[in-house]
């Protein structure tokens, strides 16, 4: 064998070795357990990703301090999708193929879970969404589950509160037509509202980010509604409420869990007073799990944990619990363990993963008064 032939054979080996290395980061039972997290760490819903990520890091830190899972440490890699659908799909692909994640946590926004979920399903890697509430998310397939309630429930909760507690009769809806979460939640609210005997005055749409909506606001102003349901995300909702108050709209605004961010208060200021939104939990609840979590989170980050943080924490804990029970960390085994979770107690309540891989949960209604949040009502799961 001459030198060139020898070099060539070595090159072939090297390339094969690199290829094997590139694809070979698969779970092999040694080293740290790798979890992937895709989230909007930047962009218009940045606080969603940041809160969730902080809570996941906290959960992992605590678990590793107790010796990890199956005697191995846990490691997480977070990829920022900037709140964009195209980036979300790429992020999941990278987490599975490049990083070698055995499970995926994410996303908050339903549109992004709908973009990333099919990739996890195809790769047979379980994905747990902490807080995507759109019903379609878990119908992607048996590898996708969630730990939050669904929008049909949330729509009903908001309608029930507005109808029974606020004694409202006429409601208007203003939803973001570019978000699966917002348009579906709007529909569920409308359905429940009509069943209860309420009247829908106006149903108007905007496109998230495009807030030159004086025409829509004027329609709302002329509708003489008691309440306006605004199932959008916080950065849009904050501006819309501020502008609506400036236009002289007096109706009470109610929103969903998409409002949950400290940024909502920063942008809308005192225009928020007297409005309500539904959420998964409140840091003000006095259940021991909540108190414990809030204390630890505050000590770690010097910030108040919002609903997204609580759900991120629960998603991580549920995943560890399933890993403990699973025969191995291979996709199908881990999937079966997650899907058979029963009576799991987390920060956001006690729940089971049902046949459709959803969680039945209770909700709280938060009232905003003098810039502060207060629990206005608690609606039990149905």
């Amino acid at each position, binding site marked *: 064998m001459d030198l060139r032939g020898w070099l060539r054979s070595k090159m072939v080996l090297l390339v094969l070795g690199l290829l094997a290395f590139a694809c070979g980061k698969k779970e092999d039972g040694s080293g740290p357990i790798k979890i992937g997290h895709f989230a909007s760490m930047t962009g*218009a819903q940045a606080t969603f990703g940041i809160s969730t990520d902080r809570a996941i890091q906290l959960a992992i830190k605590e678990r590793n301090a107790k010796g990890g899972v199956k005697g191995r440490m846990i490691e997480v890699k977070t990829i920022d999708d900037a709140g964009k659908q195209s980036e979300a799909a790429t992020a999941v692909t990278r987490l599975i193929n490049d990083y070698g994640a055995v499970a995926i946590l994410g996303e908050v926004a339903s549109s992004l879970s709908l973009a990333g979920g099919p990739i996890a399903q195809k790769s047979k890697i379980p994905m747990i969404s902490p807080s995507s509430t759109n019903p379609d998310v878990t119908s992607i397939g048996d590898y996708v589950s969630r730990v939050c309630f669904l929008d049909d429930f949330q729509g009903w909760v908001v309608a029930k509160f507005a109808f029974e507690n606020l004694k409202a009769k006429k409601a208007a809806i203003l939803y973001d037509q570019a978000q699966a979460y917002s348009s579906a939640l709007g529909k569920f609210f409308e359905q429940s509202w009509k069943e209860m005997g309420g009247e829908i005055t106006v149903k108007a749409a905007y*496109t998230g*980010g495009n807030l030159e909506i004086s025409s*829509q606001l*004027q329609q709302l102003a002329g509708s003489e509604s008691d309440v306006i349901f605004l199932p959008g995300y916080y950065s849009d909702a904050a501006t819309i409420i*501020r502008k609506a108050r400036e236009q002289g709209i007096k109706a009470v605004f109610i929103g969903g869990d998409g409002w949950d961010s400290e*940024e909502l208060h920063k*942008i809308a200021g005192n225009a928020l007073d007297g409005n309500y939104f539904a959420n998964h939990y409140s840091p003000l609840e006095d259940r021991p799990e909540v108190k414990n979590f809030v204390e630890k989170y505050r000590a770690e980050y010097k910030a108040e944990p919002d609903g997204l943080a609580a759900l991120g924490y629960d998603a991580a804990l549920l995943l560890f619990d399933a890993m403990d029970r699973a025969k191995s960390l291979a996709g199908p085994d881990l999937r079966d363990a997650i899907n058979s979770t029963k009576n799991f107690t987390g920060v956001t309540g006690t729940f089971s993963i049902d046949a459709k891989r959803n969680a039945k949960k209770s909700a709280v209604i938060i009232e905003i008064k003098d810039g502060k949040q207060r629990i206005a009502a608690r609606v039990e799961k149905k």
Partner: protein
Amino acid sequence: MSDLLQTTINTLALGGLYALIALGYTLVYGILRFINFAHSDVVAWGGWIAFTVASALGFLTGGGGVLAMMVVLLITMALCAALGVTIERLAYRPLRKAPRLNVLITAIGVSLFLQNVGLLDRLFGTRPTTIVPVLPNTVLVELGSVPIRIYDVLTIFLAVGLVFALERLVYRTKMGRAMRAVSFDERIAALMGVNVNVVVSVTFAIGSALAAAGGILFALRNDLRLTADSTWVLLGLKAFVAAVVGGIGNVRGAAAGALLIAFVEVFVHFWITKLFAGTEWVGQLQDVYVFVILIVVLLWKPSGLFGKSTVEKV
């Protein structure tokens, strides 16, 4: 009746906002015959620079009022003018003799550069915020039952004032004559002793200063979005459509186009949804109506509403 008044005011205010931005597109196109895709990013930077200036001067905590707003406006316009001149000097001037496609692609590159540099934590960061405390949107006067608010008045006055100032500049001053000469024929203008580089720099300075004004007004009305957010791109796109509809390269055309686009987006949208109340999709197509108008106008007048007479060009 009050609905009619309200929609009219909203149309005028939004039209003014679009006009400020459309003028930048139309000026640059008039002189250099290329579309400056980075213009919408200068608008976004205008909003964010205003925020930075206002917080540095302490207007965001203590409040400020109209005077503070004017200070912020002038500083921001000056900074954005400098930004525009720098962009032209570094990115476009070396390509002055290159095929136009090269400049166009460079403009897209500059746009992406501005978007992503703006996202750096040391600059503007990745969280939406508000500059409303500088000048809260108070009611100035009430006409019937319709409150007239300070942002609307400010937008309309700024737009009308600046459009008139620009008209005067272009048609009544020596610099304006030089601009028109360069627009007509760059080479012959240079032979006649016009300093083309200075004219182009001035054009970019004016266009970017107007963009800054547009950016601030947009940020006041809608709070600040991230520099890399589609909001700014859409805003720029609509202003660009306004410039094209009016006849790109024409100052009055840009203003008229902006009014037409705002008219469709606010006035037409409001009344059409009211007419078809209960049919949800009619209201959902707001942005579609804007672009339908573009197609209709271009089919009827391919060079835009005011685009025919070349003498009128800047």
